[in-house]
């Protein structure tokens, strides 16, 4: 698809979602259902990365949509609808992680490990260990950048922080993750030299 076609499609989608949010602000249940249909999978996958629990994820996604229902009247249209909705998702995740209502769960269990190659497990497991060790705000920033693919301005809007704060969080996260990967590489290097 041409870039111009993609841009047109994106702007049409944004228009449609803005209209849905306006209707949700007027307490139109059908509009909320449409919005839920459009965002359910994306929200589920985003939250599931943090919880690794279907039950907890379902609960958080419902809370996010209820917050959309209650707060749609506050949407002023100065950001994309998706940015606004993921801002709510971010705050819900941050709140629960801070309160320890959610814990960031280990990613791999034995059964999953058995289904994957050793090399892939080593690499991804070390990355995941690094992610799990990050402070909550840095962890969420990494997810917003790499999982959702947001620009730095969009991350700033979602997290309600200045762009410089976002860059600083990613700077610290990057440094810690790089250290983690270097630690992961050490046994392999020493093994190679033997």
């Amino acid at each position, binding site marked *: 698809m041409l870039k111009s076609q993609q841009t047109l499609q994106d702007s049409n989608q944004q228009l449609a979602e803005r209209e849905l949010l306006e209707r949700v602000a007027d307490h139109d249940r059908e509009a909320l259902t449409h919005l839920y249909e459009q965002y359910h999978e994306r929200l589920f996958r985003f939250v599931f990365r943090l919880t690794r629990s279907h039950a907890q*994820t379902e609960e958080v996604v419902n809370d996010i949509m209820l917050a959309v229902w209650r707060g749609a009247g506050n949407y002023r249209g100065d950001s994309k609808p998706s940015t606004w909705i993921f801002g709510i998702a971010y705050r819900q995740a941050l709140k629960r992680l801070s309160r320890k209502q959610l814990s960031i769960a280990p990613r791999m269990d034995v059964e999953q490990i058995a289904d994957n190659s050793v090399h892939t497990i080593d690499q991804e497991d070390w990355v995941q260990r690094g992610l799990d060790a990050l402070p909550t705000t840095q962890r969420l920033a990494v997810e917003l950048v790499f999982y959702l693919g947001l620009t730095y301005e969009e991350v700033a809007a979602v997290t309600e922080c200045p762009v410089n*704060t976002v860059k*600083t969080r990613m700077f610290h996260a990057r440094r810690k993750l790089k250290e983690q990967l270097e630690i992961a590489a050490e046994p392999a290097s020493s093994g190679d030299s033997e």
Partner: protein
Amino acid sequence: MTLPLSESTHDSLIELLPWYVNGTLPADEQRAVEEHLVGCAECRGDVDALSRVSHAIHNDSPAPLVPPMRAENLLDALDEPEHKLLGFPNWLMYAAAASVAIALVTIWVNLQSETTSAESPVMFETATSAAADESISYVVEITFAAETTADGRDASLTTIGAVGGISHVGGETYRVTLTPAPASLAYLEQRIDEIEAHPQISSARVVAVQLPVD
């Protein structure tokens, strides 16, 4: 925000690397990073590490099996009062409210006995009479995220409306007074939620309620 390319430096470009890797930089910044990478081994190493992180995140397997939507559950929840959305029956919420009020007053009394508070002499009423008082204040202990700067901390305290009665407890933890405020459990929960949602605050908890008496 676009960097003037003539002022691009290693320090400013290295901060853009996550967005270079996720492919969302504006064209001029993208070009500046690419040119910088040619001569900077450190940044090339960072790009490699970030690419592996991005790859690992996108290849996180197995992908979750997304369950079917349950829109009807969501719509049912819209009809419930907000406290029911928390999953508690009414009687439990009332019991919890009473317990919290009593506990707060008890904590406050204990704190008063441990510290001298000449600046704001207060007396106490019972939790029941407090419910009618619109001018109580809450003492909230706030812990900031470790990377928060002093300026960021000050800005956060202003944002949450804690402009007075701020004391440093130790480490990243401060005790602030929120006033005036209605004596309502729902209000208190909402305020704590708002404070905890602040990106630079890692936790917040009420440690005391002050009930001034004329």
